[in-house]
């Protein structure tokens, strides 16, 4: 049977999380359809045709769908759900906001935050902030899954030749009105799929000191992250939070600066390949999971690291 992936996008391009989710779908079926709901998505939909594993693009282009209001999207999805064995969405705030509504309309239980697909009906998901891993099985007619993007590689974006079909827009009397979005603009890589992440915690002391991390991040072409403590203290915006109630990241290199390492933070970054911890508190739990620990005052260490990196660059050029 076919598998449906719900695309996360900004009406112009697909988010990387969609490409990760397609890889998860490819473990379930060869017949993958991509549903794109949005406004003025003609170009986006045509571009998506080349995504290798996709057989069919389903698009619903309507001005009311511009801002992804889940009360409007969910009935469109449940209306076409018949005929799919699985419906997948990324476990991003987009997918989390939307897919449970589809679960309500279809009366099936959703499985959240899948990190591994064992078979058509057996899935693996973290619970308790990743401190336990649960293997679950279901025999519902339709399986609704949100997929943790960092657990699956991006799919091939070229080589495919999907067909394109329109899907019926279903108008609902929706009370939610979109007002606006405050999005921080940055030239740095996206936190969710950066190769290197530099994260700051309460030890950064204020928002100005985060400039140190921005400098380091720019030197490494890294994304910037933060612990909940730093976000709560107002040093940096919520979109930077890594952890159980923030974003999940799994970069090749994660540099935790002035972060003590509460289990809720570790939940969001312990799948990173190499972890570096810089903290003046030698007892900080972050050192227990770090590959390289440096017990040092971060205000000395970070400028020194930047200096060392500059030296390395010079040696190489």
């Amino acid at each position, binding site marked *: 049977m076919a598998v449906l992936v719900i695309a996360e996008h900004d009406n112009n391009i697909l988010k990387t999380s969609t490409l990760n989710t397609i890889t998860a779908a490819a473990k379930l079926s060869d017949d993958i359809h991509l549903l794109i709901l949005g406004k003025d998505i003609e170009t986006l939909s045509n571009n998506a045709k080349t995504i290798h594993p996709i057989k069919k693009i389903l698009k619903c282009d309507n001005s009311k769908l511009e801002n992804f209001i889940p009360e409007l999207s969910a009935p469109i999805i449940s209306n076409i759900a018949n005929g799919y064995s699985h419906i997948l969405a990324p476990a991003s705030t987009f997918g989390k906001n939307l897919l449970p509504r589809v679960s309500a309309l279809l009366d099936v239980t959703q499985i959240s935050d899948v990190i591994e697909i064992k078979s058509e009906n057996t899935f693996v998901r973290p619970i308790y902030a990743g401190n336990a891993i649960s293997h679950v099985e279901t025999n519902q007619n339709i399986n609704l899954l949100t997929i943790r993007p960092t657990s699956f590689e991006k799919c091939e974006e070229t080589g495919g030749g999907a067909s394109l079909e329109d899907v019926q827009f279903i108008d609902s009397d929706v009370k939610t009105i979109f007002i606006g*979005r405050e999005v921080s603009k940055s030239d740095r890589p996206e936190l969710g799929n950066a190769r290197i992440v530099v994260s700051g915690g309460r030890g950064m002391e204020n928002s100005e000191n985060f400039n140190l991390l921005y400098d380091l991040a720019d030197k490494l072409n890294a994304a910037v992250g933060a612990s909940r403590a730093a976000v709560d203290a107002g040093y940096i915006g919520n979109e930077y939070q890594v952890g159980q109630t923030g974003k999940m990241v799994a970069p090749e290199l994660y540099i935790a600066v002035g972060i003590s390492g509460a289990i809720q933070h570790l939940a969001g970054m312990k799948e990173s390949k190499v972890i570096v911890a810089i903290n003046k508190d030698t007892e900080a739990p972050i050192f227990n999971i770090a590959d390289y620990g440096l017990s040092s005052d971060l205000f000395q260490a970070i400028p020194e690291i930047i200096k060392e990196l500059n030296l390395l660059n010079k040696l190489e050029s």
Partner: protein
Amino acid sequence: MKVLVAVKRVVDYKVQIRVKSDNSGVETQNVKMSVNPPDENAIEEAVKLKEQGIATETVAISIGDEKSQDVLRTSMAMGIDRSILVKTPNSLEPLAVAKTLSKIIEKENPDLVLMGKQAIDDDSNQTGQILSALLGWPQACFISDLKIEGNKLSISREIDEGIEKIESSLPAVITCDLRLNTPRFASLPNIMKAKKKPLDIIDVSSLGIDTDPKIKIIRVEEPPKRKAGIMVNDVKELVEKLKYEAKVI
């Protein structure tokens, strides 16, 4: 305006959990249990609305075994007026929780339902969204700011890209982020007072809904442990290790 707050009893966020030796789940016997942290934000918001004269009555509801009375008493000690325990021996899946809540809502007729955005035990992040769809009410999830004027809601939601602002109207279902407010501590006199506040207990079987699990937990295991790393002496050594040993820069 009447506000209903859904509250879950979970293993305290500071507890380092243990997987049961038979891999059937996580050990919850003899560990400290507390109100699910973002549910505390929901309680705080409801109590604030009452103090501001916007809410006229606040009701907390929990679904669980007898012991879930604890978290309802805590809710009332924080200022909730009364509470309801829907008793069930088994832990319910989000869809069943939402159906249970919707049955109680039919009777209670609240104008606003508040709850945490996720429970920190199973991290599903579903119940509020499902409930909103079952009721056909607007949903506002992961909120960090709420203003109510008459029937109108002005909301800030935390999304992956930053903050999203929406407007909506009552009745509505709202799920709270940890940054919505700072939950108060219950004072001793208020803890004493809470013991006298009404707490009704009803059995889930009396609601006539399907609460059978649709997901079977086959096995719960410990996550793979990271191997212990090393402490480096200085920045120079760190950068060298990253460059020549780990080869990540």
